[in-house]
């Protein structure tokens, strides 16, 4: 049967039952819109969580001592060779930073808290959240800076403020305690209160002097593209042979799992929602086919082959599905655009921080997801029509025409 005739017949048949097919198209469109909008939220959340994980001093890749994760401290430090970064000539790197991060106790006149003391070179911290921090007071001026900056929340807990002194106590490489007093240069306001409570920053050289060690505990790298992680891992692995070179997914496995779930979330949501809808579509198609069984029998009596009858039912179903999906995708885009710049969730700040999401949450509508939904829907439309089509050709032309 010529395709043009097939399309002509199918198209006109759809218009015979405008209301029924219109309702079907509307139902499909709303389901697709729902799937896409939920997906934009999940994609946005996953992206936020990934970016937050990478920003929070992890980077795309981190080099650490093999025992550092189990027993973090300067005893698990190392001294990178000068010029190690030359090994990454093939990988575009946004930046890298060497840090000393050790567990410490911080004391004010009134309170004591456990924190992570991080010695940094501020000039290299554009790759982490430290580079874009809002600081009340002064930021660190360099790796030699002897002052500290602490989180605004920690400052509240310690009942202290900018300009006052705090005592930091930690353990040196020899296992003996070291302590020193530091003046607060500024307090920072991060997206997450958890960060403000945990991280205390000072110059890398200052920490080295405190610990009496030139070692660092981590080298963090941010790449231009996350796609280059495998290549960078391989190249860094060759340079830091005795150290662990880990991707952010290994360092933040929970976040990586959530991102993976978000990737599959589209399929899960799609098949739950559209799966239910397909039963409705099959039912509508069976009704439509049985209403026209006499006509379909007549077409076969005139010489239309059974497979052409099947093709006609399949094309009609596919057209309904296509119309619904296109309308649904268009509606999803229309609904998404006003929120594409981000949604202010500061009213739910505490909850969102627990989920690793910042106050401004940006949904993400990805073209690839739209293509996947479109293709899956066409496949589903064809599958949904096979049973009604089979019923249509099971009836002999003569039986069909007698009805």
């Amino acid at each position, binding site marked *: *049967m010529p395709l043009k005739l097939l399309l002509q017949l199918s198209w006109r048949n759809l218009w015979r039952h405008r209301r029924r097919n219109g309702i079907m198209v509307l139902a499909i469109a709303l389901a697709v819109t729902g799937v896409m909008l939920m997906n934009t939220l999940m994609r946005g959340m996953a992206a936020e969580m990934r970016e937050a994980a990478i920003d929070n001093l992890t980077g795309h890749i981190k080099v650490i001592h093999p025992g550092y994760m189990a027993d973090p401290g300067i005893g698990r430090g190392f001294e990178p060779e000068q010029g190690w970064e030359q090994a990454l000539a093939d990988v575009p790197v946004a930046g890298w930073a060497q840090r000393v991060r050790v567990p410490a106790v911080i004391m004010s006149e009134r309170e004591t808290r456990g924190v992570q003391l991080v010695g940094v070179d501020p000039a290299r911290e554009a790759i982490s959240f430290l580079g874009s921090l809002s600081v009340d007071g002064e930021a660190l001026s360099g790796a030699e800076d002897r002052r500290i900056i602490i989180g605004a929340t920690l400052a509240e807990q310690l009942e202290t403020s900018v300009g006052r002194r705090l005592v930091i106590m930690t353990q040196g490489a020899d296992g003996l305690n070291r302590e020193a007093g530091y003046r607060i240069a500024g307090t920072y306001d991060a997206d997450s209160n958890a960060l403000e409570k945990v991280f205390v920053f000072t110059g890398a050289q200052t920490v080295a002097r405190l610990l009496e060690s030139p070692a660092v505990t981590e080298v963090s790298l941010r790449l231009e593209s996350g796609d280059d992680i495998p290549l960078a891992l391989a190249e860094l692995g060759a340079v830091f042979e005795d150290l662990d070179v880990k991707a952010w997914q290994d360092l933040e496995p929970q976040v990586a799992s959530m991102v993976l779930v978000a990737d599959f979330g589209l399929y899960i949501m799609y098949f739950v929602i559209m799966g239910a809808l397909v039963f409705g579509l099959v039912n509508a198609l069976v009704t439509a086919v049985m209403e026209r069984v006499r006509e379909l029998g007549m077409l076969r009596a005139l*010489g239309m082959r059974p497979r052409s009858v099947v093709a006609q039912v399949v094309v009609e179903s596919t057209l309904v599905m296509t119309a619904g999906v296109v309308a649904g995708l268009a509606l999803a885009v229309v609904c998404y655009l006003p929120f594409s710049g981000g949604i202010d969730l500061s009213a739910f700040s505490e909850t969102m921080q627990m989920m690793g999401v910042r106050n401004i949450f940006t949904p993400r509508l990805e073209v690839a997801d739209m293509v996947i939904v479109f293709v899956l829907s066409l496949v589903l439309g064809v599958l949904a029509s096979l049973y009604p089509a089979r019923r249509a050709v099971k009836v002999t032309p003569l039986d069909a025409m007698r009805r």
Partner: protein
Amino acid sequence: MTQHVVECQGVSRTYQDDAVPVHALRGVDFAVGTGEFVSLAGPSGSGKSTLLHVIGGLDRPNEGAISVDGEDINALGDSELADLRLNKIGFVFQAYNLIPVLSAQENVEFIMQLQGVDAAERGERALGTLDSLGMRDLADRRPGEMSGGQQQRVAIARAIVTNPVLLLADEPSANLDTGTTGELLELLKRLNKERGVTIVTATHDPMVMGYASRQVHLRDGEIVSE
């Protein structure tokens, strides 16, 4: 020697009606020569429509052999049977059976489209056939916009436009008034005489029987007289 378009030998067809066998045809021997206008006549349940259906490949006999234009129908699968109907047989049904979403011209072109005839030739032949049946002015109308007689004319146009070797008409006058039936029969007779179309009708309408050149009477699934 007369060329036979249709040959039936010992054709039997039995249906199961609530587990009771109904013998619609009992060993029928029947042949139709090229250019004949045959009327299968008989009361309801005599087997005339069943015989027409098995000749047209719409039904299969339980026993016996049928050939149409030399092709053994029993040897054909469903798709091959569809091809036989498409290329060699024209059907006119009691209820017209036009495709409701297509115009008169598109209905007439439908079979040619299935056959793969190109658009220009299709249009020319469809309009020519509608013209010969006095229906050209209604070429753009859909079935719902035409009377019963007009629809039956379009059905005939669709059946003959491809020059089939055999035209089968099942109770073609059943839904028509006397005047329209007369016009329809004149038309069939003209097609038979002028174009040599072989026609077999199944009817219990004496008016239709009167127009046929040969009448075959059936009763209880058997041919009782010719």
